[in-house]
């Protein structure tokens, strides 16, 4: 292992341009992936905020008694999905409508809007199905006239988020594939640069597995270096975007470590895919 490490370092020294090319390719693949993930992450953050405003509004019949409403609110408040239940009187509804729609404030009259029970759901219980399910249960109370919860709107939010995530994953895989292909190609040159060592190793009885080791180590190190470079670039990009466009959130540490690991996997995989074939060409 020690020798393999040393040989890997010799590989770097002997072909610095080639090594730089591999590292840059990995870095740019991961950078592109990183940028997209950053967009997806921030989109998800934004969606989460919008989502938190998702509300189920149960309009009440005019003759509903205060006791029955209080009982119902207690029952609804006990649902696992429910974060908060709020009673909105006719007057409050009128007040809210007037502030939200100023230009029509004169149009609204007392008693024009029904009283309602507004329900907010907990995080993680805001999928379209769950919202519809809770709305359905609320609908069963006798004094509830109508239930509104913006079903289509929720559905759309979810679709956008899913598309963003899927696009991120697909794009990431495509870029990783490109990086692997390029690294496989550079291995050919790296093997040629070390043809003499390889032929001597073989002459004195080193196994193919052993001869392969330095190249895999080299791939690993290049992958990590590419990952670090990509991380730096992504971080810089997020700084620039935050400063000049919109405030952005950066990845959690766990995700950045995953990025480095991704670089290492690309480096090792790219090397492993072609090194066996290439070293067999050296006599």
């Amino acid at each position, binding site marked *: 292992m020690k*020798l393999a490490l040393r040989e890997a370092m010799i590989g770097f020294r002997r072909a610095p341009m080639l090594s730089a090319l591999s590292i840059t390719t990995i870095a740019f693949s991961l950078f592109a992936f990183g940028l997209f993930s950053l967009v997806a992450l921030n989109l998800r953050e934004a969606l989460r905020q919008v989502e938190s405003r998702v509300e189920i509004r149960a309009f009440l019949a005019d003759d509903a008694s205060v006791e029955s409403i209080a009982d119902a609110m207690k029952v609804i408040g006990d649902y696992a999905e429910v974060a908060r239940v709020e009673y909105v009187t006719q007057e409050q509804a009128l007040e809210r409508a007037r502030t939200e729609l100023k230009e029509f404030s004169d149009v609204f009259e007392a008693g024009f809007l029904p009283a309602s029970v507004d329900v907010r759901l907990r995080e993680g219980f805001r999928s379209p199905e769950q919202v519809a399910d809770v709305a359905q249960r609320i609908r069963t109370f006798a004094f509830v006239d109508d239930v509104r919860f913006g079903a289509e709107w929720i559905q759309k939010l979810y679709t956008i988020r899913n598309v963003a995530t899927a696009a991120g994953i697909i794009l990431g895989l495509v870029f990783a594939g490109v990086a692997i292909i390029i690294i496989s190609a550079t291995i050919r040159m790296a093997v040629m640069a070390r043809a003499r060592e390889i*032929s001597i*190793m073989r002459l*004195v*009885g*080193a196994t*193919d597995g052993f001869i392969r080791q330095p190249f895999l180590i080299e791939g690993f190190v290049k992958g990590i270096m590419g990952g670090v470079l990509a991380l730096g670039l992504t971080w810089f990009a997020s700084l620039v975007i935050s400063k000049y466009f919109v405030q952005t959130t950066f990845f959690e540490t766990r995700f950045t470590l995953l990025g480095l690991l991704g670089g290492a996997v690309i480096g090792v995989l790219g090397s492993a895919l072609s090194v066996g074939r290439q070293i067999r060409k050296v006599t």
Partner: protein
Amino acid sequence: MIRFTRVRKEYPRTGTALNDVTFSIAKGEFVFLTGPSGAGKSSILKLIYMDELPTHGEVWVSGTRSTGVKRKEISLLRRKLGVVFQDFRLLEDRSIEANVAFALDVIGTPADKIRTKVSRLLTQVGLASKATNLPRELSGGEQQRVAIARALANDPFVLVADEPTGNLDDRATRGVFQLLREINTAGTAVIMATHNLDLVKRHDFRVLEVNRGQIVFDSADEKGRVPEITP
């Protein structure tokens, strides 16, 4: 120890290199392999260290059969034999000490064992004082001695030498040849391909002569007859 049985070797581009070659070499023998350029000497040597495998026939080397041999078995076989070439094949960017150590290192010899062994080998080939020099700081003869030290690193049972003195002047040739004889005396078989007829004539070792891909003369078969050596 080494046995060729009706060996035929064809190359895709250049055609037949060896045809119906049969011979065997015993433990501890010293054998000259002679013949004109392109006769098939190098092919025979490559078949011995299994860099090439026969198209037909079979090669046996110390228990390893060429038929159906696996790459791993070839690696293990190479640990039991040493090979040197006309062009030395040293690593130019490392000291001669590191060149010899390399052969031990790649097969996983422990570091302390490598150190003692390398110094013993360099002493054996007379280069202990130049351990830290780079190959280019040495003469041709000295470089070949380094290559021989490397070939001896794993205590081979046979040393295969392809024109080891081909690039050397007379003095260096004598020195390298003397070293090969000493190695042989110590029990290692030596198979040496050479163009140097003076060397061949001056010593009473077995001669295998190859011409146009066939063994045309084997002194072991014709004891007493004066070999007709083609230049």
